[in-house]
C-alpha cells in the first residue's frame, strides 16, 4: 500500500540510473543514515557502542571490501586478516611519524598501502582459480603476520610488540586513543562506512563492477568480449584491499585501541568471509547484514540463558552457544542459500503487493 511504484514514471536518465530508483527506498535509506548518526550516540550506552556497534561497523566495512572481491569479482580470498594488518600497521607508522597529519588522511593512506600489497598478492589470481586461489591468498595472510611480528620497525621497536592508537582529533574532537569517547569513535566509523558503502554501490553498478561480474560469471567469455582479466582482477584485489586496510586501521584506532599481530590472525580472514557468505555474495547490503549476524548472534546467544533465567556454567553456555550458532548457520544456508540480502529482497517483493497479494 505504502510501498508501491505504480504511477511513478522515470522521466530522465538520471532517475533511471539512481541507486535507489524507488522513492520510498530513498527516503528510508536517508532516514536510516541520519538516524544512525544521531540516535545511538545519544541513546546507546558504552557497552552497546564499544562492544557491538563499533565492531559491527568496522567489520561491515571489511565485509564490503571482501564482497567486492569475492562476491562481485569471484576471487576467493582468505588474506583479509593480512590486508587489515597492513592497514593497521601503516596507520600506526604514519600517525607516529607525522603526528600532525589528519587521522582521516592517515586512514586513507593506510588503505592505499593495503591496496598496494593487495595488488601484489593478487597477481597469482591470473593463473590460479577457486579454492586453489583461496589457499594461495593464505600465503599472504601468514607471511604478512609473520613480517609484522618479526620486524620491530613496524611497532617502533616497542618491546611489548604492540601498536597503540594515540589520541588524534578531527575538528577538535578526540576520535582515537583511550581518551576518545565511544560516541566519537562510533560516528567516525559510521562516517567511513557510509561513504565507502556509497562508493562501493556506485562502483559495482558502473563499468568496473560490470567487468568484475563478467569475470566472475565466466572469465574466458569475459575476456573474449573485451574485459581485460589482468586489469580487472588486480583492480578488484586493489580496491578490496583498500577497504580491508581502512577497516584494519579502524579496528586498532577506533575499536581495540592497541593490538598485537594476533588480532589479525587467520580467524579474522575466516570471520569476514563468513559475513560475506551469510550476508549474501554480491550484495553491499548483505555485507552489513552478515556482519550483524556474525557479531550480534553470539552475543545474543550468550545472554539468552541468563534472560531465560537458566543458570549454567559459562563453559556449558559457550559450548551450547557454539552448537546453536553452527546449527543456525546450517539452517540459514538450507533455507536461504543466497544469504540474508536475498531475504531482504523477498521481503521487499512482498511489501510491494501488500496488502493485496493477488
Amino acid at each position, binding site marked *: 500500500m505504502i510501498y508501491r511504484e505504480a504511477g511513478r514514471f522515470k522521466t530522465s536518465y538520471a532517475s533511471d540510473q539512481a541507486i535507489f530508483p524507488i522513492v520510498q527506498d530513498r527516503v528510508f535509506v536517508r532516514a536510516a543514515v541520519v538516524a544512525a548518526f544521531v540516535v545511538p550516540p545519544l541513546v546507546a550506552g558504552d557497552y552497546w557502542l564499544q562492544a557491538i556497534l563499533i565492531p559491527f561497523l568496522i567489520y561491515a566495512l571489511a565485509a564490503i571490501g571482501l564482497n567486492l572481491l569475492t562476491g562481485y569479482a569471484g576471487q576467493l580470498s582468505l588474506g583479509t586478516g593480512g590486508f587489515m594488518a597492513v592497514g593497521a600497521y601503516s596507520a600506526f607508522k604514519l600517525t607516529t611519524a607525522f603526528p600532525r597529519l589528519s587521522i582521516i588522511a592517515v586512514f586513507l593512506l593506510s588503505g592505499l598501502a593495503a591496496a598496494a600489497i593487495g595488488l601484489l598478492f593478487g597477481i597469482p589470481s591470473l593463473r590460479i582459480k577457486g579454492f586453489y586461489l583461496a589457499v594461495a591468498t593464505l600465503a599472504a595472510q601468514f607471511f604478512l603476520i609473520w613480517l609484522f611480528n618479526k620486524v620491530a620497525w613496524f611497532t617502533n621497536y616497542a618491546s611489548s610488540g604492540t601498536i597503540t592508537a594515540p589520541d588524534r582529533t578531527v575538528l577538535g574532537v578526540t576520535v582515537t586513543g583511550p581518551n576518545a569517547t565511544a560516541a566519537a569513535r562510533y560516528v567516525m566509523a559510521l562516517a567511513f562506512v557510509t561513504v565507502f558503502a556509497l562508493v562501493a554501490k556506485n562502483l559495482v553498478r558502473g563499468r568496473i563492477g560490470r567487468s568484475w561480474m563478467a569475470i566472475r560469471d565466466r572469465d574466458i567469455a569475459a575476456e573474449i568480449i573485451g574485459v581485460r582479466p589482468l586489469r580487472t582482477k588486480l583492480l578488484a584485489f586493489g580496491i578490496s584491499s583498500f577497504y580491508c586496510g581502512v577497516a584494519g586501521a579502524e579496528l586498532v584506532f577506533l575499536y581495540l585501541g592497541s593490538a598485537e599481530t594476533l588480532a589479525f590472525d587467520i580467524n579474522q580472514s*575466516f570471520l569476514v568471509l563468513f559475513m560475506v557468505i551469510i550476508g549474501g555474495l554480491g550484495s553491499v547490503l548483505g555485507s552489513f547484514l552478515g556482519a550483524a549476524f556474525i557479531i550480534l548472534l553470539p552475543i545474543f546467544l550468550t545472554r539468552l540463558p541468563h534472560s531465560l533465567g537458566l543458570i549454567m556454567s559459562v563453559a556449558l553456555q559457550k559450548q551450547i552457544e557454539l552448537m546453536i550458532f553452527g546449527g543456525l548457520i546450517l539452517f540459514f544456508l538450507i533455507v536461504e542459500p543466497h544469504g540474508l540480502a536475498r531475504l531482504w529482497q523477498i521481503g521487499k517483493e512482498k511489501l510491494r503487493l501488500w496488502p493485496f497479494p493477488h
Partner: protein
Amino acid sequence: MSDLLYMVLVAPFKDMAGSPAFLVEVLIGGVFAGLMYSLVALGFVLIYKASGVFNFAQGVMVLFAALTLVGLLERGAPVVVALALTAAVMVGLAYAIERVVLRPLVNQPQIILFMATIGLNFFLEGFGEMAWGANVKKLDIGIPDRSFIVRGVQINELELTAAVTAAVLVTLLALFFQTTRIGLALRAVADDHEAALSIGIPLKTIWVVVWSVAGVVAIVAGLMWGAKSGVQFSLSLIALKALPVLILGGFESVPGAIVGGLIIGVGEKLGEVYWGPLVGGAIENWFAYVLALAFLLVRPQGLFGEKIIERV
C-alpha cells in the same frame, strides 16, 4: 650485497654438505612431518573428490574422533572396542551429515557447501567439548615415544609408526578405490554426479560411505597427532597445516596428498633449519604456503589435480 647472496645461496648448502648426518635427520624429520600432514589432507581429498565439498570441518572431525577415542579409553574400554566404537560414531556422524547438510544443499554452489561445513565446524566444536571436556588428555596407544640411532641419525619410533601407518592407509585406500565395487562407484560419482546417478549409482549411499571413510581417516590422524601433543582442542587447528599439502597435491588426488605432504614437509624443514635463522626463524607456516604457491604458478590445478579444461 655479495655477502647477502652468499648467506642465502651458498652458506646453507655448505652447511648441509658439512654435516650430512644432520641433513639426513632433517630430511627424515621432513618426511615424517609431511606424512603427518598427508594424513589430515587425505580426509579433505576424499570428501572433495566424491562430493565436491571443501570440508572446513575436517580438522574438527580429527579432534572429535580423537576425543571420542580417548574418552572411551578413559572409561575403561579396551583399545579394539574403543576403536570400533569410535569408527561407529564417525559413520553415524557421516550419516547425519548426509541427511542434515548435504541432501538439502545438493546442487548449491561450492562456496555455500563450504560455508555449511563451517556451520558444522562450530557445531562439532561445541558438541565435542561438551561431551568430552576441554582438558588435555594423554593418548596412550602403546607406541613408545623413544628414539633410536642408526649411523648417527636419530629416528623417533612414534614418527616412524605414523609414517608407516600413513603409507598403509594410502595403499588400502588406493586398493579400495581401484578394486571394489563401491570404489568404482565412488570414482564414477567423482567424475560426474549426474551421469553416475543416471546409471543407477545411489548418490546418497556413496556420500555416506565417503564421509565415513573420511571419518576413519580422521581417527587415524587424530591418533597420530594426539599421541604427539595430547588430545586437546588445538588438534582442530592442524587443518591449516594440511591446506598447503592439499593445494600442492591437488584437491582430487589421493597420491597427490602423499606427494604433496612429502614436498611440503621436507621443504619447510629445510627452509626452517637452513634458511630460517637468516630471518629470525618461525618461517615454517608461510614458507609452506609460498612453496605451494610456487608450484601452483606452474601447475594451477596442483601436481596431480584434474586438468582444468576451460570452455566458453
